[in-house]
C-alpha cells in the first residue's frame, strides 16, 4: 500500500510505526505532545500512546538530552525532539560528553539507543538561530551517527533504520524540505541503509556530492544543464560512505561538493580531504566546494544572499567543467 506524503507526514508515519512496534520507544521534547510539535511531526502520538510515552517536557534542552540518556541506559529507546537545531547548542555537553562516548567510556557495558531529531538548516526565512546547520559540530564529536534525509521516502526509511540501532543518532530534518513536496511512499515499514550514500543520478563526467536541503537544487541544475553528472546524496554524514564517493571520483575525475552549511570546516572539507588523500591521482581539476559563506547564518532578510542557490551551484559546475 502506498501513500502520498511530504517529509513531515513521512516522519509522523515512521514514528507511528516505531511507537507501535516497540513499547520501549518514548518521545520527549518541547511541545511534542498536545501540540504535536511546532512542525507537527509528532501530531496525534500523545493522543494515541499516552502522555507517559509522549512527554511534553519543560523548556530545557540539556535535560531533554540528559534525561534521554538516562532513559536509554534503562533500556528504553528515547526519541527526543529538539525544536530547532540551533537550540541543541544548549544541550551540547550532554550530546558530546555523554551521548557520543557512553559506549566507549564503558567499553560497551552501556550503550545508548536514542534518536535525537531536529529540524536543520534554513531556507524558510526563519528567525535568528532557527536555521542552523550543525552537522560538523556533531560529526567532529566522534561517536554520534549523523543522518540527514532529502526526501519523504528516505526520511521514513532512515528514521526506521535509526530506530533499530543501539547507538545515539543525530537525525537532521531539513526544515526547507519538510513540506516542499509530496511523493509516493509505502505505508508499511521499510528501511534505508545507514552509512550508504544514494546515487541519485548516474554519470561519468563529474561527481556532485550533496545532502539534505541542497539535494533538490542540485538535481534541478543537473537536469537543466543536461550534464553527465553523478549525483551522490550522502544521507549518512557519519558514517560517511567514502567508497561510493571515491569510486565515483575515480570514474569522473571531477568533483563538486554542495552543502548549505558554511564553507569553512563544513562537511565538504572532510570529503575534499579524503579525496585528496585517496583519489588525488584521478582528479582532473581542482575540487569545487559550493556552500554558504564562512559567516554566521544571517537574519531571514539576508538568507537569499547566503544559502547556495541554483545559480551558485550552476556557476560552480561551469567553473569545474571548464577547469
Amino acid at each position, binding site marked *: 500500500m502506498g501513500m502520498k506524503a511530504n517529509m513531515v507526514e513521512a516522519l509522523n508515519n515512521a514514528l507511528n510505526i516505531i511507537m507501535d512496534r516497540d513499547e520501549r520507544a518514548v518521545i520527549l521534547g518541547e*511541545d511534542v505532545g498536545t501540540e504535536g510539535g511546532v512542525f507537527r511531526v509528532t501530531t496525534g502520538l500523545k493522543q494515541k500512546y499516552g502522555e507517559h510515552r509522549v512527554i511534553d517536557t519543560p*523548556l530545557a534542552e540539556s535535560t531533554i538530552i540528559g534525561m534521554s540518556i538516562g532513559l536509554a541506559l534503562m533500556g528504553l529507546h528515547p526519541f527526543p525532539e529538539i525544536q530547532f537545531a540551533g537550540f541543541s547548542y544548549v544541550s551540547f555537553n550532554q550530546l558530546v560528553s555523554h551521548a557520543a562516548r557512553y559506549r566507549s567510556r564503558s567499553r560497551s557495558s552501556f550503550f545508548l539507543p536514542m534518536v535525537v531529531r531536529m529540524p536543520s538548516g534554513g531556507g524558510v526565512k526563519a528567525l535568528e*538561530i532557527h536555521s542552523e546547520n550543525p552537522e560538523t559540530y556533531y560529526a567532529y564529536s566522534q561517536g554520534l551517527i549523523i543522518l540527514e534525509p532529502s526526501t519523504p521516502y528516505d526520511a521514513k526509511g532512515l528514521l526506521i533504520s535509526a530506530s533499530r540501532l543501539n547507538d545515539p543518532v543525530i537525525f537532521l530534518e531539513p526544515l526547507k524540505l519538510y513540506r516542499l513536496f509530496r511523493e509516493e511512499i509505502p505505508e508499511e515499514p521499510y528501511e534505508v541503509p545507514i552509512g550508504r550514500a544514494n546515487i541519485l543520478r548516474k554519470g561519468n563526467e563529474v561527481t556532485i556530492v550533496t545532502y539534505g536541503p541542497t539535494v533538490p537544487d542540485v538535481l534541478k541544475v543537473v537536469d537543466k544543464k543536461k550534464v553527465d553528472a553523478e549525483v551522490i546524496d550522502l544521507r549518512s554524514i557519519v558514517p560517511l560512505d567514502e567508497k561510493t564517493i571515491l569510486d565515483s571520483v575515480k570514474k569522473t575525475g571531477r568533483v563538486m561538493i554542495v552543502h548549505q552549511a558554511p564553507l*569553512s570546516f563544513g562537511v565538504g572539507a572532510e570529503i575534499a580531504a579524503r579525496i585528496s588523500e585517496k583519489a588525488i591521482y584521478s582528479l582532473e581539476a581542482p575540487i569545487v566546494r559550493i556552500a554558504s*559563506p564562512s*559567516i554566521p547564518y544571517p537574519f*531571514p*532578510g539576508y538568507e537569499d*544572499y547566503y544559502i547556495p542557490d541554483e545559480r551558485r551551484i550552476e556557476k560552480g559546475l561551469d567553473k569545474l567543467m571548464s577547469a
Partner: protein
Amino acid sequence: MIEKIFQTEIMYQQVLDENGNIDEKLYPHDLSDDKLLKMYYYMTLSRAFDNKLISLQRQGRAVTYAPAMGEEAVQVGAASALRDKDYFVPNYRQHVIYFMRGLPIEKYMLSWRGFEEGLEIPPEVHGFPVVVPVGSQIPHAVGVAYALKLRNDGQVVLTFVGDGATSEGDFYEGMNFAGVLKVPLITIIENNQYAISTPRSKQTAAKTLAQKAVAAGIRAIQVDGNDVIGVYKAVKDAIDTIGEGPMLIEAITYRMAFHTTSDNPALYRTKEEEKEWKRRDPIDRMRKFLEKKGLWDSEKEKELWEKHQEALNKAVETADKFVPDPKSMFNVFSFLPETLKEEMEEYFGDGNEG
C-alpha cells in the same frame, strides 16, 4: 536533633484591580498624571505595533513575529520605573521598551522584517538586541549589572524572561551569580502562562515562579502583571532598595494572542480561557483608572489610536525604503580576514546581487 534553619515566604501584590480601582495604601504617589498618561500611551502603542506587525507578516512584509498583546502592563510598568541611566536586556517580546528608550520604530521594525540593521541600537538607548535562545540573556544581564556595580553610580539592569525560559539552566545560573556577586539586577519573569503550547503547570512543580529566587538566595515578589501600576511599583521599590541585592519579580499575565504568527493556540487552549483573560486586559484596566481619575475620555482614546496609526504607517513607509546590503553580512570581525575577503569578492565579483 531536628531544627528549622531556614524559612521564607513569597508575597503577592496588586495595586490596580480589574475594575480600575487602586489600593490607596500601595499606590506610588510619585506617579504624576503625565507619567500615567505616558504609560497608557506606550501600552497602546505596543498594541498598535503588534497589530501592524501581524498584518505586515500576513502580507509577507514581515517575518515571524511574537506579539506582546496582553503583556503591555508588565513591560510598560517595569520600563517606566527605569531611569535613563539604567539598562535593559530583553528577550524577543519587549518591543515597546525600545521605543520608550528612544529607538525609532522604523529602525526597530527592520529587525522584524528580517534585517540585522534593525538592531543597530544607539548607545544612549542603554538596551541590547533581541535574544532568541530563551534564558540565554540572563547571564548577559549579570555581566552588564556587574559592570554597573564597578561604576558605582546607582544604575540597575532590568531584564525579562518567560515562564518557560525559567526552566533553562542559564536562568538559574544567572540568578545564582547575581546573588553571590550582589549585582544590581532586576529580573522580571513575564509569566504569560504558556511557553508556546506548554502550560505553566507543565513547566515546574513550584507553586510560584517567584520562589525560584530562593535557590539563589535573592529577593522575590509576585505581582499582578496586568496591573501596570503594581508592576511599576515593584520595579521602583526594587531600584530604591537595590543595595540589598538583586530582585526577582514574577508578573502574572497572559499571552492574549498566539505565541508567534506561526502558532495556532486552538491546538492547546480553550476559547473560554482566552475570554476570561480578555476580561482582564491590562489596557482596559488602565483606561478605566484614567477615566475615573478624569484624565481620559473616548475622544482622547480615538485620537490616540489615530496617532499611533499615523506613526506606524510612517514607520512602515520609512522601513519600506530600506535597501539591504549583502556585503554587510561579512561584518563578522573587527577586520576582514584575507580568506573571508576572498570569499566575499568571489561572491560579489561573480555578479551576485548586492
